[in-house]
């Protein structure tokens, strides 16, 4: 496991920008600010049969935040609410403990493991998942 925050894979994930796009206003959308740095993430989700049909996000933020949103955009379509919540919980646990993410999590989660040593950056990675939870009607 790399010690470095900005592995090539994370830079590539951010650049891939899966799911990036202005909210079309067709689903439930939610915006969360990072109170520390003024960054802002908007996520819009459309549900069908209790699963996520589509998800788009608009990120004004750092590379870590963009990479995290891209990971969300990659995996959200077709996922259940529970899957989003489980991965958000796995992320929180990984950041807090510094241990590898729980088995069965999205594979890209592991890319963020080095962030666990940088408390000031936790929120950068969390923000997209929190916005998704909020859009899904959960208390973030």
């Amino acid at each position, binding site marked *: 496991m790399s010690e470095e925050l900005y592995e090539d894979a994370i830079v590539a994930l951010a650049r891939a920008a899966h799911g990036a796009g202005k909210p079309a206003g067709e689903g439930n959308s939610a915006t969360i*600010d990072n*109170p*520390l*740095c003024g960054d802002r993430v908007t996520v819009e989700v459309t549900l069908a049969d209790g699963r996520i049909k589509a998800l788009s996000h608009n990120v004004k933020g750092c590379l870590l935040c963009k990479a995290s949103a891209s990971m969300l955009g990659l995996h959200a379509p077709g996922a259940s609410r529970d899957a989003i919540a489980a991965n958000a919980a796995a992320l929180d646990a990984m950041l807090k403990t510094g241990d590898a993410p729980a088995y069965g999590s999205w594979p890209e989660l592991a890319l963020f493991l080095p962030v666990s040593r940088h*408390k*000031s*950056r936790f929120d950068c990675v969390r923000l997209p998942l929190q916005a998704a939870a909020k859009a899904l009607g959960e208390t973030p």
Partner: protein
Amino acid sequence: MRFDPDKLRSEFPILSTHPGGRPLHYLDNAATAQLPRAVLDAVSRHETESRANVARGVHILAERASMAYEDARGAMARYLNAASPDEIAFTQGTTAAINIAAQGLGAGFKPGDEVVLSELEHHSNIVPWQLLRDRTGIVLRVLPVTDDGRIDLSALDRVLTKRCKLVALAHASNVTGAVTDVARVVEAARAVGARVLLDGAQAVPHGPIDVQALGIDLYALSGHKMFAPNGIGVLWGRQEVLAQMPPVFGGGGMIRHVTFDATTYADPPKRFEPGTPPIAQAVGLGAAARWIEALDRESVVAHELRLTGRMLNGLAGIAGTRIIGPTGLQARRGVVSFALEGVHPHDLCQWVNDRFGVALRGGHHCAEPLMRRFGLDGTSRASLAPYNTDADIDALLEGVADARRHLA
């Protein structure tokens, strides 16, 4: 392990100095307590290894400083048994904490609303409410003080009315040492729907507090009286109470967004921490809380009570002395005020300092209304910390007797 005050003393560099060429008998702990190595080292380590501004910084020193600052918040949350670290706002001290509470709560008060204080309050728990009164037209009502220097809680029924919004009292008196019966105050306040704020400046040095068990709403304290540096204190408030309070001072760090038209504010506790906070001092306060927690509480209490008894008995044996406060050991701290007939407190304090190396405090102790209650301009006050010993009390008693012989 038996509690050993002499071993404890050795943790305090200043206690082995000889100011003025005499061993130091420091009995001015209610004014400011001394610093143990653990606190001195925590602060200096912070300043030489982790010093940076907090929040928003991603470099390694900024990360360390932010973590140290939030860690101190956690330590104080534990010390007070707060429901969450978010209930701990760092302030400059008790005085700042009470002023913030007064202006913050005051925004919700209407003319005619009542705040109840007592006659034994420190000026820092009087003047902020007077400034608020001048601005908003609230009414201050005052609980009297009994002959033995306690807040007269039998007057609660009479003084607390339906218009009472807040009861703000000392948890322990800095003059008489009396400890307030908080349960009774809380019960009376709840009966009229009022909140309760405690001025904990003189209570916190004597061990952890359980604000939840006390059932109160707000608590104020100072670091420098609990073995921590100057310039740091805490305003604790229940989350929903702090959440209702608007900001008092504005600046960096307490905002959500700023435009010239409209600014939005951060949630508590940040809302009450504008500007760069006293970071290293908070680190010192956290270290002090841990240092106190590590003491054997029961032994320390027993030790201080024994010394208090020795002091009270000894003073009673010197003709012309009068204790201002409880003469027994129930519900009191090791803070003993007394008058010596015919001798001005400053002359007494100077005498015992110059000839016996005893550090007392003389004067009105920022409690003029209480002095008036007892018909005095001031008292002499001896106040204990765990590091005090029989030798300190002996020097005090010898000094007072000597002052009487020469000055009375």
